[in-house]
């Protein structure tokens, strides 16, 4: 079957037994199982990359592992690169690679020996691995044992292990954690350069990573359901926010007052949150709040990509529901 989607997920369900003991008082199946993915459905067209976002424990890692055939699903179906993950597992595995932050290595092997092993095991591309390591300026560690590697250096090694196979889809769970700012840029450049040839499916909380590498965001809610799928480009054009300025007022703040300070805001409980696209806007908001004066505290922070996605979804809620209904 030829499909124009590289990943199709139809009501994917994953459950874990809560405990595997010989003596358990809980006898019914339902009690013993914890549902982590509760009917995940989405399509990813060929040529696009996806970011999975959601709160801790919502099942992002589990979804990655299920799609990359580490876990087998307990319901629903999914097609990766056009192959059924249940029935055509080997075909799927030929075309994908999975990078986990939990991946550690044989400490006594050198970087070269480690990469050699994985290249052999996966029938991978040593040249690609070399290129990546050189680009990231780790080639001076080529003959160093991995026990001396820092967390960031290990993160790069992991990515290298994932990439050397030259997969159609690279599934990566928080791949840039621990990599320093400068190298992160190099990683982003490297992955971006390969552009449309390789689909990335990432879990990464860094807005920049999502921004540069991904075309779509799949937002997952606690309980393992899809909250929505958003185009990164649309998100940017409508919510080009960098900072989030939280205002804690003395008493309450009226809608009108807030609007006068800055038109882009959101009320949360008794507090008010303003959104700024850049630093000068943030400064401006600060000044206006100070002028207004009736506040206890102001807090400024970099906005999270989850927040923006949620805002977008809130704004387009109706449209979205209609679309979902239509799809059904």
């Amino acid at each position, binding site marked *: 079957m030829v499909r124009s989607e590289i990943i199709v997920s139809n009501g994917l369900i*994953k459950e*874990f*037994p809560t405990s*595997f*003991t*010989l*003596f358990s008082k809980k006898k019914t199946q339902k009690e013993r199982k914890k549902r982590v993915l509760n009917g995940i459905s989405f399509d990813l067209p060929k040529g696009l990359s996806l970011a999975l976002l959601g709160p801790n424990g919502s099942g992002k*890692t*589990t979804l990655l*592992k299920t799609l*990359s*055939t*580490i*876990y*087998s699903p*307990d319901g629903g179906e999914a097609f990766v690169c056009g192959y059924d993950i249940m029935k055509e597992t*080997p075909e799927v*595995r*030929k075309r*994908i*690679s*999975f*990078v*986990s932050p*939990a*991946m*550690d*290595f*044989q400490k006594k092997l050198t970087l070269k020996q480690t990469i050699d092993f*994985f290249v052999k*095991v*996966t029938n991978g591309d040593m040249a690609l691995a070399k290129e990546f390591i050189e680009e990231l300026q780790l080639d001076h560690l080529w003959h160093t044992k991995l026990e001396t590697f820092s967390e960031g250096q290990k993160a790069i090694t992991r990515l290298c*292990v*994932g990439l050397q*196979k030259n997969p159609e889809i690279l599934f990566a769970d928080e791949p840039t954690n621990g990599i320093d700012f400068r190298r992160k840029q190099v990683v982003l450049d490297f992955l971006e350069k390969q552009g449309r040839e390789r689909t990335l499916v990432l879990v990464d909380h860094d807005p920049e990573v999502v921004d540069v590498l991904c075309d779509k965001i799949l937002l997952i809610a606690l309980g393992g359901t899809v909250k929505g799928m958003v185009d990164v480009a649309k998100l940017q054009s409508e919510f080009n926010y960098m900072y989030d300025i939280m205002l804690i007022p003395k008493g309450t703040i009226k809608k009108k007052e807030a609007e006068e300070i800055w038109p882009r805001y959101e009320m949360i409980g008794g507090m008010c949150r303003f959104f700024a696209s850049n630093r000068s806007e943030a400064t401006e908001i600060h000044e206006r709040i100070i002028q207004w004066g009736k506040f206890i505290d102001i807090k400024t922070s970099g906005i999270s990509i989850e927040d923006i996605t949620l805002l977008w979804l809130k704004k387009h809620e109706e449209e979205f529901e209609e679309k979902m209904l239509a799809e059904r």
Partner: protein
Amino acid sequence: MSIFKRSPTTKDPRLSSIFDVTLATVKRNLITDWQYKSDIVIQFLWTVTNLVAYGFLGLSVGQGTGDFAPNYSFSLFLLSSSAFWTLFTGNYEETAFCLREEAARGTMGYLVTNNVDTLGIMVGRYLSSSIKFLAIFLVTTIPTFALIKGAAGNLLPHTAREFFMLLPLVFFSYLFMMSISVIMGSISLLVKQTTTIVRIMLYLIRIVGGYFFMIESFAAYGGLWWLPVVFVALPIVSGQYAFRKYLIEHDTTVRFPDMQVINDHRVKNGFAPLSFTGLNYGYMLLINFVVSCLFLLGAFLIAKILTQVARRRGTIEFY
């Protein structure tokens, strides 16, 4: 004095005493141990296995000499057992634990997604470990034996014929232990606390295989006369048998125990070698071959099935 400030003198600022720490630790361990009830059962079984092994051992030695008096010491008997098992213990353990190590290292997921079979990982581990322990065997066991027997002549083949008769039996023992290792390794995909289970299995095979006492001893206890006949069909048992005979007596004529002889209760002695008058060497090889193949087939099937189950249950790697 401000209400936010607590006077530093209200409580003695010393750390907890070693007594408190010990008590707290004991309490925590008792609570957690109780949570792992299946572990307690396994540990209980381990104790039972030990009792059985050494119980039989005592009985065997206590039997004294029967119809066939041993012509060597019991220590030499045990030494030949442990020499033979140098070849199979380490590789068995390393294989049984290799998936767990891979999982702890976090590489399991990656290997699985690359179609690297859990079976491939285990067999790979078994082969490399076997080479390692063969080397260890060569530099430790053989010299020990040479010293004890006081003759370097026992070290190497007395005749090429005997030596080459022994080799296939040892080879089938390797295959057999590979299947057991793979089965134990597969179980570790589902049950994380497998250390004791692996030990119990090792002991069971040793008991059955004549590590502690001659397997004919089973026949000395009434209705169990058929047990040695069944056991000797396992390659590791006939391997051990042949190895001992070769090392101590320079003889490799391992055959099936003659049922008639055993049924007659003529075998009363604990660890004396029997003079068999049963099936010949060719049959022994054939049976070894068939049994090894069956076990390997079973082990590979079990590995496949348990890997699927582990993917279902989410225990295939640590998370």
